[in-house]
C-alpha cells in the first residue's frame, strides 16, 4: 500500500512527460489451436503507455507473478472478466519505473497465452530490507533471562514456594521485555533490534537475532503466555522446581525460534523446544502420558530432520556460505523451479506436522489430553504457532515458486483440516480433546490464509496465530478449572454448573464465544481477513471453510449447553462446586481482556503484521 502511495507521489512530482504509445494485440488463431499476445515480449521506456487491443475470441489480461505462473497476481493489473471486444489500457503507474510485468489471459493461461512487458532496464530492483542493529541487547535478554530463572528455581528446589515465586518474577520480567520489544519494533518495515554473535564463522553460522512485524506479535504472545502458565500452575505439588525450570527453558527456546534469523540456530531452538515439552508431558501428564510423550517427540522430530535437510540444501544452493535467512532469501531468484519445489516440500513436511495439518495431526490430541494444563497452554498457545511461523518466515521467502506449486495442496489440506477438525470436535466428550481438535480446525484457517499468498491472507493467518494463541490457552484453562473444581472434564457428566458457579460460568461463556469467532473478539478479525483473501483468490470455494465455521459454532455452543447449562448433573457432586480460585480466574480474565482489546482495535496488531507480510511477499516477488 505504501509503495503504491509513494508511486503516486512520485508520479505527481515528476514533470509530466508524455510517453510513447504501444499496442499489444490480444488474439487467437481461427481454428482455436493457438492463443497469443502480439508481440509476446514488449520493450518500452519508463513512462510509455501500453494499450491491449482485442482482435478475436474471449479474453482478458491480468498480471501474474512471473513467466511461469498461471495465476492472477493479487493486487496486480487486471482487465476484469474475459470479454469479447474492446481495448484495455495499462495504468501509467505500472510503467513508471524499471520493472518487468508478466501477464496472462486467465482462460487461456494453460495454453501458453502469456506475455511480458519489460519497462526500461527490466527486472524489478530487489527490495531493500532495512536491518537496524539495536544499541541495547533486548533480544538477548529475552533468551537469557528465562534461562537464568530456570537455574535459579533449581537452586531452591527444596523449598515449596520459592520456585513458583521466582518463575513468576522471571516471566513477568520477560513479559515487560517482550512488550518493550513489541513497541520498539512498531510497524516499521524490515528488521529491527538486530544483534549478531558469530558462532561458527567457517560455516557462516551466527546467532543472528532480529524482529519484524511477523515475529514481534509472536514474541508478545510468548511473553503473555509465560506468567499466565506460571499462575495457573501455582499449586503444582509434584517436583515444583523441575516443573517451573522446564517451563522457563521452554520459554527461552520459544523466544529463540521466534527471534532468530539464521537457519541453523532456528533449527537448534526448534529442537530444544521438544525436550522440556517431552518431560512436561511425560512426568506431569495424565494416564496415558508415556505413550503420548513418545509419540509427540518422534512425530515432530522425524518431521524436523527432513526440514534440516531442506535447510542444508538451501545453504549449498546459495553457495554464499551463510545460513542467514535474509541472505538466502535474497538469492531466491537463482533457485531453479524444481529445486524450489523439492526444498519447499521438505520444509513443508517439517512445518505441517507442527501446525498440525491433517493428516499429520494425530499427535496433537494425544499430547494435549495427556499434558498437564500448563503444558497444554504452552503447547496450544505458543508451540503450535511455530509451524506456521516457520512456514512464513523460513519457507515462503526462499522458495516462492515452490510455494506457488504447492498452493493447491495447501488449500486442500487447510480445508480438510478445518472441516475434519471441526467435525471431530463435534463428536468429542472430553473437553480437552474437543479443544485439541478445534486447534486443528483453527490452524487450518491460518494455513488457508497462508495459501492465498496475498497480503491480507498472510496477515489474517498471523493474526489468527495470535488470536488462537491467547484463546486456546483460555479454553484449556476452562478444562483445567473443570477438572480441578468438578473432578471431570467429560462433557456428558457435566451439567448445571452455571447455577453453582455463576461468575466462573460467565467467564467460560465469554471464552467459548471468543473461540467460536464472535465479532468483537480477536478470532473473528482473523477469520474475516482470511476468508476475504480466500474469496479473492479462489472464489466460491469459500463455501467449504464457511461451512467449517458453522460446525465450529455448533460444537462450541453444544458443548457449552451440555456442560455449563441444563439440569444439575447426577454424576458429579454438584453441591461442592464453587467459584474458581483467584489464580485460575485472573489468567482467564486477562485473556478475555486481551481478546476483546485486539478484537475491537485490531490495528495495534494488524499494522505491524501487514507491513511484515508485505515484506515477505516482496521477497517472494509477488507484491
Amino acid at each position, binding site marked *: 500500500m505504501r509503495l503504491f502511495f509513494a508511486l503516486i507521489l512520485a508520479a505527481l512530482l515528476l514533470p509530466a512527460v508524455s510517453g510513447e504509445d504501444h499496442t499489444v494485440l490480444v488474439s487467437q488463431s481461427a481454428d482455436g489451436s493457438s492463443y497469443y499476445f502480439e508481440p509476446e515480449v514488449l520493450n518500452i521506456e519508463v513512462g510509455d503507455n501500453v494499450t491491449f487491443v482485442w482482435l478475436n475470441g474471449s479474453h482478458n489480461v491480468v498480471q501474474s507473478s512471473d513467466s511461469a505462473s498461471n495465476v492472477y497476481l493479487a493486487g496486480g493489473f487486471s482487465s476484469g472478466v474475459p470479454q469479447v471486444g474492446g481495448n484495455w489500457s495499462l495504468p501509467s503507474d505500472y510503467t513508471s519505473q524499471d520493472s518487468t510485468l508478466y501477464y496472462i489471459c486467465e482462460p487461456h493461461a494453460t495454453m501458453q497465452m502469456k506475455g511480458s512487458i519489460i519497462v526500461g532496464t527490466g527486472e524489478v530492483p530487489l527490495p531493500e530490507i532495512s536491518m537496524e542493529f539495536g544499541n541495547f541487547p533486548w533480544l538477548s535478554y529475552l533468551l537469557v533471562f528465562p534461562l537464568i530463572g530456570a537455574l535459579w528455581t533449581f537452586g531452591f528446589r527444596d523449598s515449596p514456594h520459592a520456585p513458583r515465586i521466582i518463575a513468576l518474577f522471571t516471566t513477568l520480567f520477560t513479559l515487560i521485555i517482550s512488550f518493550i520489544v513489541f513497541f520498539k519494533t512498531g510497524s516499521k518495515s524490515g528488521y529491527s533490534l538486530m544483534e549478531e554473535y558469530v558462532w561458527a564463522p567457517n560455516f557462516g553460522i551466527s546467532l543472528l537475532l532480529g524482529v519484524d512485524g511477523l515475529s514481534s506479535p509472536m514474541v508478545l504472545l510468548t511473553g503473555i503466555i509465560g506468567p499466565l502458565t506460571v499462575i495457573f500452575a501455582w499449586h503444582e505439588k509434584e517436583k515444583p522446581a523441575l516443573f517451573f525450570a522446564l517451563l522457563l527453558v521452554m520459554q527461552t527456546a520459544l523466544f529463540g525460534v521466534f527471534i532468530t534469523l539464521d537457519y541453523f540456530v532456528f533449527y537448534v531452538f526448534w529442537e530444544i523446544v521438544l525436550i522440556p515439552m517431552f518431560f512436561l508431558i511425560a512426568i506431569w501428564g495424565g494416564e496415558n502420558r508415556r505413550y503420548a510423550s*513418545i509419540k509427540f517427540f518422534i512425530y515432530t522430530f*522425524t518431521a524436523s530432520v527432513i526440514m534440516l535437510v531442506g535447510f542444508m540444501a538451501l545453504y549449498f544452493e546459495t553457495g554464499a556460505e551463510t545460513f542467514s535467512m535474509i541472505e538466502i532469501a535474497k538469492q531466491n531468484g537463482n533457485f531453479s523451479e524444481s529445486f524450489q519445489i523439492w526444498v519447499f516440500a521438505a520444509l513443508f513436511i517439517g512445518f505441517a506436522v507442527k501446525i498440525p495439518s491433517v493428516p499429520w495431526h494425530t499427535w496433537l490430541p494425544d499430547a494435549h489430553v495427556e499434558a498437564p494444563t500448563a503444558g497444554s497452554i504452552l503447547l496450544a498457545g505458543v508451540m503450535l504457532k511455530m509451524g506456521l511461523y516457520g512456514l512464513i518466515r523460513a519457507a515462503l521467502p526462499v522458495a516462492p515458486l515452490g510455494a506457488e506449486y504447492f498452493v493447491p495442496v495447501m488449500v486442500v489440506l487447510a480445508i480438510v483440516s478445518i472441516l475434519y477438525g471441526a467435525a471431530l470436535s463435534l463428536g468429542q466428550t472430553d473437553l480437552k480433546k474437543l479443544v485439541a481438535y478445534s486447534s486443528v480446525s483453527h490452524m487450518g484457517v491460518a494455513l488457508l490464509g497462508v495459501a492465498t499468498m496475498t497480503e491480507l491472507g498472510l496477515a489474517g493467518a498471523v493474526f489468527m496465530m495470535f488470536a488462537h494463541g491467547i484463546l486456546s490457552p483460555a479454553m484449556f484453562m476452562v478444562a483445567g478449572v473443570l477438572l480441578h473444581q468438578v473432578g471431570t472434564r467429560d462433557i456428558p457428566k457435566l451439567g448445571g454448573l452455571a447455577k453453582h458457579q455463576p461468575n466462573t460460568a460467565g467467564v467460560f461463556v465469554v471464552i467459548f464465544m471468543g473461540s467460536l469467532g464472535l465479532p468483537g473478539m480477536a478470532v473473528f478479525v482473523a477469520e474475516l481477513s482470511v476468508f476475504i483473501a480466500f474469496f479473492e483468490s479462489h472464489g466460491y470455494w469459500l463455501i467449504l471453510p464457511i461451512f467449517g465455521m458453522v460446525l465450529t459454532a455448533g460444537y462450541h455452543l453444544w458443548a457449552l449447553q451440555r456442560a455449563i447449562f441444563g439440569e444439575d448433573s447426577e454424576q458429579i457432586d454438584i453441591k461442592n462446586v464453587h467459584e474458581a480460585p483467584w489464580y485460575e480466574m485472573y489468567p482467564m480474565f486477562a485473556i478475555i481482556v486481551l481478546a476483546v482489546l485486539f478484537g475491537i482495535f485490531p490495528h495495534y496488531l494488524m499494522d505491524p503484521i501487514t507491513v511484515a507480510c508485505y515484506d515477505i511477499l516482496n521477497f517472494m516477488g509477488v507484491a
Partner: protein
Amino acid sequence: MDSSSLFLPEILLIASIMAIPALHIFTENRRSYSICSNVSLVGAFIFLVLSWYYPDSLSMDRDVSTYIFYDHFKVDAFSQLFKIVFVLTALIVSLVSTSYFDESEPHQPEYFTLLLSSTLGMMVTASANDFLTLFVGIEISAFSSYAMVAFRKKDDKSTEAGAKYLLIGAFSSALTLYGISLIYAITGFLTFDGVNSFMDGINNGVVDGDFSEVIFISCLFIMAGLGFKIAVVPFHAWAPDVYEGAPTPVTTLLAAASKAMGFVAVFRVFVFALDSVYEEWELILGIIALASMTVGNLAAISQNDIGRMLAYSSIAQAGYIMIAIPALTSEAMSGAIAHTLVHAFMKGGAFVVVGCVGAVGLGYSLDSYKGLAKRSQLLALAMTVCLLSLVGIPPFAGFISKFFLFYGTLKAGMAGNSWLIILVIGGVLNSALSLYYYLKIMRYMYLYDPEGSEDIEFPNTVRYISLGVILLLAVFFPLYWESLFELCKEASAALMG
C-alpha cells in the same frame, strides 16, 4: 629432541605393561596396579596434548607427517587426535574398573596389563604407515581384548562371548590378511604411500594392465575383515553377544575405543591408500552404510538388555560414519572423524553408567533402569545427555558432529555424486527412527518408580566421570564446536595427504 621421541607415549604404556606383572610379585595391593596404569595413561595423554600444541619442541610438524622406524610409523595430526581419544577412553575404563571389580576379583594385574596392551595396539594402528604395521596393531589390540572379554572365566556369558569374539576375530583377521596379500601381489608395496602411488599410476595410465577385478576382490576382503572390527552389517552378529557378555568396562573399551580404531584403519586404507580406485569400493561401502544403520536401528528397538541395545545402536552409528567415506572430500572426512570422536565419548559415557548400574547389583535389563532418576539424578542426567547426543538432538555434541557428517556428505552429493544424497536422507530418517529406543530408556529412568530401595550408594569415581561427560557433551563441544571442527579438519588434511 630426536623425532623418535614421538614414540614416547607408546613407550610409557610398554613400560607399564611390563611393570604391572612385576609389581604383582611384590605386592597384592590392587590399587597399585590401577595407579600404575593410570599414571602411564595420564603421562601419555599429557605428552600427546603437548605434542599437539608444541610440535616444534618435538621436531614434529603438524602439517607434515613425521616418519619414524624407517617410515613404518607415521605421526601426524590424524594419528595424534585418535591417540588422545584412545588414551582418554582407556583412562576412563581404568578408573571405572577399580570400582567395577571388587577386592575378591582374581587376576586384576592381568586385567590392567591387557587393558594397556590393547590401548597400545590401537595407538600403533593409528600411526601405522603400512599394511603390516596396521595388521600388527589391530592384532595386538584384538588379542588383548579377546582375553579381556572372557575375563570372568567362571561366568558362562563372559566365556561364551570371549569364544565367539575370538573365533570371529580370527576369521576376520584372515580375511583382512588375504585382501592385503592381493594388494601386495599386484602392487609390490606394503606401505600406504606406495600402494597409493601405484593406484594413482593405474588411473594415470602409467601402470599398464587391468587390475580392476583383483582390486575389487581385495577391497571386498579388506572391508569384510575391517567390517568385523567396526561391526557393520553384515559382519555385526558378534557385537550384541559380546557387548552383553563382556564385563561392562571391557564393553566400554570395545564400544568406544576399539570401534574408533576400526575406523582409523578403514580411513587409512580406503581414504588414503585406495582412494584413487574409489570406483571399485564406493558402492560396497554405501550399501554397507545404509544396511548398517537400518538394521542396527530396527534391531535395537526390540532389545531388552541394555548392552545389546547399545550394541545395535553402535552398529547404526557405524553406518552413519560410513556414509562419509564414499564422499572422499575433506569436509565429509572431517565430519566422519568428528563423529567417530564424539561417538567414543557418548557411547563410552553411556556404558560407564551401564557398568555402574550393573556393578551396584541392579542388573542389565531395561527394567533395572526404572526410576534411576530417583536413585541418582546425576547418573540419569548423564545417560540422558549421552542418549540425546546419540540421536543427534541439538544442542548436544552428537548433533554437532552428525551435522558435520551429513553436511560434508550432502555437499559432496550436491556437487555431483548425487547417490550420496540418498545415503544422507537414509541417515536422517534413521536418526528419527533411533529416537524411539533411546527415548524408551529415558522413559524408564524418569517415568517409573524404582523397584526396590531408592537409597543406593553409587561409586564416586563414576559420578565424577558422569559429570565430566555431561560437561563435555552438553557444554564444551556445543560452545566450542568451531575448534572441534578445526581439529578434525586438520586431521582429515593429514589423513588425505
